[in-house]
């Protein structure tokens, strides 16, 4: 039956099962979203796998314990990524000032990437890591999750205009830092 449902319907069914305490459903929900949550956390924390893992764990534990609040799939992404943003910003506040960028980043680049592309990826990671936290989280949210500006505004607790502004400024700063890569 599940195979004939759309992705949205499948997600709604899984969420409903999670609300009823179905652990397998929670695992399925985790599997759907884990990589994006982890990736956002990893790049937000300059490649620190331990912090990213802790943040990811925190997010899904809060999700599991609070999923009874949901009324439908339409709100789910917003709520999930609000947890992600809050966890990232809270952990960042508790941290010491940012350590050197990219020192702990174990590059996920595949062996097939040539040297030039690896260098670009490394530079981009460093550039993103150097963004102020509010711009960094907005840039990463936009890149990894298909949220509308309206949804991002709810996730980030700000107006759509502020979302647009943070993304504009964030990408502009990034472009300035990476201008050496322009062809």
């Amino acid at each position, binding site marked *: 039956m599940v195979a004939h449902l759309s992705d949205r319907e499948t997600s709604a069914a899984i969420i409903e099962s999670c609300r009823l305490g179905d652990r397998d459903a929670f695992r399925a929900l985790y599997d759907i979203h884990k990589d994006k949550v982890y*990736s956002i956390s990893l790049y937000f924390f300059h490649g620190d796998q331990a912090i990213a893992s802790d943040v*990811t764990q925190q997010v899904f534990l809060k999700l599991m314990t609070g999923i009874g609040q949901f009324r439908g799939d339409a709100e789910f992404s917003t709520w999930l990524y609000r947890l992600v943003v809050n966890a990232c910003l809270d952990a960042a506040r508790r941290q010491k000032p940012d350590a050197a960028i990219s020192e702990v980043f174990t590059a996920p680049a595949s062996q097939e990437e040539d040297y030039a592309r690896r260098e670009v990826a490394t530079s981009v990671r460093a550039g993103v890591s150097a963004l102020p936290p509010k711009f960094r989280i907005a840039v990463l949210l936009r890149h990894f999750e298909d949220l509308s500006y309206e949804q991002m505004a709810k996730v980030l607790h700000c107006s759509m205009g502020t*979302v647009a502004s943070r993304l504009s400024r964030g990408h*502009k700063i990034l472009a300035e830092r990476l201008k050496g890569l322009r062809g």
Partner: protein
Amino acid sequence: MFSRHVSRELAAYADRELGNAVEVERHIGQCALCRAEFEQVQFGMAMVEHLPSVEAPAAIWASIEAALEEKPREKPIWRWAFAAAVLLTVAGIAYWRAPVVQWDVIRLDGTPIVGAKHISGTGKIVVGEWIRTDSASRAGIKVGDIGTVEVEPNTQVRVMAAKADEHRLALARDIDPRYGAAFDRARALGVEAIAYRCVISAEEIAVAGPVPVLG
């Protein structure tokens, strides 16, 4: 017609999230400054496309399960290399009260979990805490001056303490009341609790005589 620059709206324009896109487009066409900034925003967005998604380590799910459940996973896989005789894990046997002893834990591969925390470099483990590794992680435990114990992948190890002069066993119910309650239920159902004194040296653990299990 805009009389102001549109810097703050350029990302929304690029993402087609703008209600007044026609006006912004017209302005960009007429304003060299905003046009240059728009090209920067577009370039920045193109660069971010170089960030690949990273697969979450398997250990994260294990740590979530561990946090949700009251006891360790039902079917642990016990494999470790002994370099010292002070590490011991036996399901169903309570741990003694012990002075607070900490050992260094070194990450060898991946992100092993000590207690409830993933470690990326080094950590500390105390009596009663678990180390968990998944298929991609390994850890080393420096046991004082005795040596290092390597915790292999897919392993759970709990640090316990035993003293040769102990003559009775009682549960540390104040540390883990849920464990104490579960222990009582098990005994009520007929599970027998037995405890033995051990003589521990750097070369071996030798089982000595039985000691009573209290409370």
